[in-house]
């Protein structure tokens, strides 16, 4: 196999070590903690960038450690993994800044930042996993490291939400465990990309492989919040805004979606999955979830809850794209991994800013908020346009490719689902935009924090502006080499190469 490199391991360690050190610090060592945090975040982005550059030059990176018998811990860099790792590390950096601002003066920040770092370790570990076992290890690690963040506030409500969260994710993890061991026993230690192994077994073990596929899919669908396993996501919104932003827009839900992408493309292979008719149920559940999430979002007055149901809906775009066979829909699914991430994180940042600055958490309170917080709401509005699918924002690109892919595959009903979803997106997001910009502001509103001339604290404002601009840039510069779209196209091209 390829030469061993510790670079993939370093990418993980760049957040694992700061997390551990932060845990050992005292609560009041704020500057040192912030320094460690940012150092880790910057190092991670740098390392991912370095590996990306190396990978583009044709270098291969893998780190393999044999645990016991044929149980192997393997980190391996491929394009899809790097794509996800880049997303995680960049958004971690942004969210770390945001969290530092958001939690300023709060309690238990040491614990928060330590587990926050562990989460990103888990999420990049998922990205760089070279085989199914390693993926599973990090998948469970993610569950455990997010739990303290969900219950961070320590209120009864948070603790209850944590319980729901755990039952869903541990249950899903157990199901996945069953599937992973089953796959291991049936097909041996499969590395991602070795689809020929399943291909070779298809004639003899067809039933077994079908069952295992659905077992694993069920396990992954919990984190990917596919109906009816989405229940944990809206409940977890009690967590602080940075947690909702990074974890419930990016890390946790994406771990599930990314897992589905891996399962279909890199374990079974798209051709085999199609041949075995594994994808139709996935398509149906995904399509239903898209509509269901949107409809539920319509009726939420709680800002974060509405965003949460919107996440449920948007995530299934990825699953839907995976379920449709074709180069274009695959591109759409892969690129939506990133696009949905940056758009949704913008929205959560915005919601967090408003809650932090004015104490508003209900949509009905948002009248005229755009005039008070123009930059925040500006970024939010960009993200809304993206979610609806208006050009030139990132979300348009995803939907365009998904739609084209559906037409290419002859699945016209998918186009209908996409259109319905866009209409629903508009129906539940545009009222917020309308209220924010066009309704008369509430005169009594007094900012809870003094922020000088800025509309809110700089550390809260910068991240939302950055991710808002990123969502715009990802759409505008989609055709440029190095954009998420161009990388997604390359990934898809490789998959469909004969």
């Amino acid at each position, binding site marked *: 196999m390829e030469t061993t490199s510790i670079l993939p391991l370093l990418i993980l360690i760049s957040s694992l070590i700061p997390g551990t050190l932060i845990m050992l610090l005292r609560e009041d060592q704020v500057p040192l903690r912030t320094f460690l945090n940012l150092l880790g975040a910057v190092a991670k982005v740098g390392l991912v960038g370095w590996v990306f550059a190396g990978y583009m030059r044709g270098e291969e990176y893998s780190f393999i450690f044999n*645990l016991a018998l044929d149980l192997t811990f393997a980190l391996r860099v491929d394009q899809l993994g790097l794509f996800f790792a880049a997303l995680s590390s960049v958004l971690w950096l942004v969210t770390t800044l945001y969290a530092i601002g958001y939690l300023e003066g709060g309690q238990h920040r040491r614990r928060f930042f330590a587990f926050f770092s562990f989460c990103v370790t888990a999420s990049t570990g998922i990205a760089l996993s070279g085989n199914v076992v390693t993926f599973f290890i990090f998948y469970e690690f993610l569950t455990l490291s997010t739990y303290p963040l969900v*219950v961070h506030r320590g209120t*009864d409500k948070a*603790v209850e939400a944590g319980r729901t969260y755990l039952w869903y994710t541990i*249950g899903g993890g157990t199901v996945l465990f069953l599937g992973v*061991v089953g796959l291991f*026993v049936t097909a041996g230690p499969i590395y991602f990309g070795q689809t020929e192994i399943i291909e070779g077994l298809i004639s003899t073990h067809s039933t077994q492989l079908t069952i295992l596929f659905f077992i694993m899919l069920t396990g992954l669908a919990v984190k990917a919040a596919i109906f009816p396993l989405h229940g944990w996501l809206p409940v977890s919104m009690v967590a602080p805004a940075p947690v909702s932003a990074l974890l419930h827009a990016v890390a946790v839900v994406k771990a599930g979606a990314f897992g589905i992408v891996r399962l279909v493309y890199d374990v079974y292979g798209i051709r085999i999955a199609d041949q075995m008719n594994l994808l139709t149920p996935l398509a149906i559940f995904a399509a239903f979830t898209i509509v269901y999430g949107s409809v539920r979002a319509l009726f939420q007055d709680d800002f974060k809850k509405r965003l949460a149901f919107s996440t449920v809906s948007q995530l299934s775009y990825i699953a839907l794209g995976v379920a449709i066979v074709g180069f274009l829909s695959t591109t759409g699914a892969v690129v939506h991994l990133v696009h949905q991430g940056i758009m949704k994180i913008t929205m959560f940042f915005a919601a967090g800013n408003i809650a932090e600055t004015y104490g508003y958490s209900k949509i009905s309170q948002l009248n005229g908020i755009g005039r008070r917080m123009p930059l925040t709401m500006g970024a939010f509005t960009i993200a809304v346009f993206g979610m609806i699918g208006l050009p030139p924002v990132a979300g348009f690109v995803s939907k365009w490719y998904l739609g084209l892919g559906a037409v290419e595959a002859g699945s016209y009903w998918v186009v209908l689902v996409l259109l319905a979803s866009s209409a629903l997106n508009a129906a539940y997001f545009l009222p917020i935009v309308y209220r924010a910009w066009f309704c008369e502001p509430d005169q009594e509103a007094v900012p809870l924090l003094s922020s000088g001339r800025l509309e809110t604290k700089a550390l809260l404002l910068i991240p939302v502006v950055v991710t808002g601009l990123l969502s715009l840039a990802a759409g505008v510069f989609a055709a440029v080499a190095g954009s998420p779209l161009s990388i997604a196209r390359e990934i898809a091209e490789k998959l469909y190469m004969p």
Partner: protein
Amino acid sequence: MTDLPTSPFPAFLVGLPVLLATLSLFFRARGKAVVGLAGSLLTGVMALFALFEVTRRGTVIHILGGWEPPLGILLRMDPLAAVFIGMTAVVGIFISLYAWRYFRAQEATTGGFPLFWPLWLFLWAGLNGLFLSNDLFNLFVTLEVIGISAVALAVLSGKKTALVAGLRYLLVAITGSMAYLFGVALIYGSTGTLDLGLLGQVLEPGTTTTFALLVITLGLMIKMAGFPFHFWLPPAHSSALAPVSALLSALVVKGAFYILLRLWMEVFGVSLTYAAGQLIGLAGAIAVIWGSWQAFMQTSLKLIVAHSSVAQLGYLLMIFPLLILAPGVTADSADWLSPAWTAGVYQVIAHAFAKASFFLSAGIIIMALGHDRIESLRDLVGHMRITALAIAIAGVSLIGLPPSGGFMAKWMLLKGIFLSGQWWWAPVVLTGSLLTAGYVFMLLRLAFAPAREKEAFRPVPRSLEVCALVLALGSFLIVLPADNLIQFLQSGEVFGTGIESIMEGGAHGND
């Protein structure tokens, strides 16, 4: 047998703790503790040296005093024994350090329980002796040494619940030993030898052998609290002092399991049938579900942890159906034997670390609160974050989430189950994990929950919390050397072997 290299280590491993225990009896309270702690550290270090010796030279033996068996005693340290001895040493050292600080903190009110030290050293000598024994009778003697010192430790607090639980524990232990010894008598009567290696060759299938197997298994199941003989364990383990609970749960019950494993695999192969394996597996499966469920229903921390031991020991019994092959299957073609053995060994080690850590944490909480009712664990995270972390980490290993030692055990067990085609055990493993998650997360949920009323957390020495945390981390770190550990075990004779049950043997085994 005797052409194996000799080494003095096996003798030291038994002799040293006995000597130090006896020595400590001559000292007064504080002196006992000093000698005891020094003795524990010395024994632990000696055990690690011995482990190193076996990794270097392979199986070593020692003939005590030059008296050859059958009247003399031969100690044999093979890789499997070495791993158990090493585990006992590492866990033992940390429990000793904890005990030293724990008892000193309570010296003023309780006198510091100086008798803990000689009893613990005797117990340690018994455990080492058990792992090293090479004949059936020696195993009986070491079982008794372990049993009596364990009971004495369990009743050390002198409290009523502990005394009653201790008496029951003692009676059960004696019953188990006597059942075991009855089997030994039958074996000796039919073969004229007690040597394990020799018995493996000369033992013939027959009614006597089957009956001996039955009573020996019965005795050992009673001792290791296998279902349905688990009833004595929760009261005895939960009423003891914290370091004692840790010793009893982490180490003592493993002794009986070790004998059961060795005897089934090395001696009684001729009488074992596929059905026997299934039966003991069933006992394990029931223990897993029942124990986990009971743990889930308890309201005091130590009872939760004690019931959890019943369940975790059940997993150990579940490897037996995998090791005994169906008629017509040969050991060469059974690729699930190595996973099953790995599962067993890792379950033993991971449980030892995690459960010791858990009981030590419970001790810390009792020290801080004065009791261990779980509703008082609210806001534990805010008051004692290291202990909360230790409970979380140890709990994760008990559940079997990656990358803990418990995960290694569950993974290998499930893999062995699928490879052997005995898929009916799989739901048990998964349900057990979920139930374990249930009680572990019930504790964590409380630990994070806001305090209802002001619960007075008294300050606790930091070093106690660190001991618990180190043991909890140990249950994860043991995964790192897994590959080397398994290779080391495979260099021994037993590991990776199975029993090919034949039809003739089956006929005898079923009657």
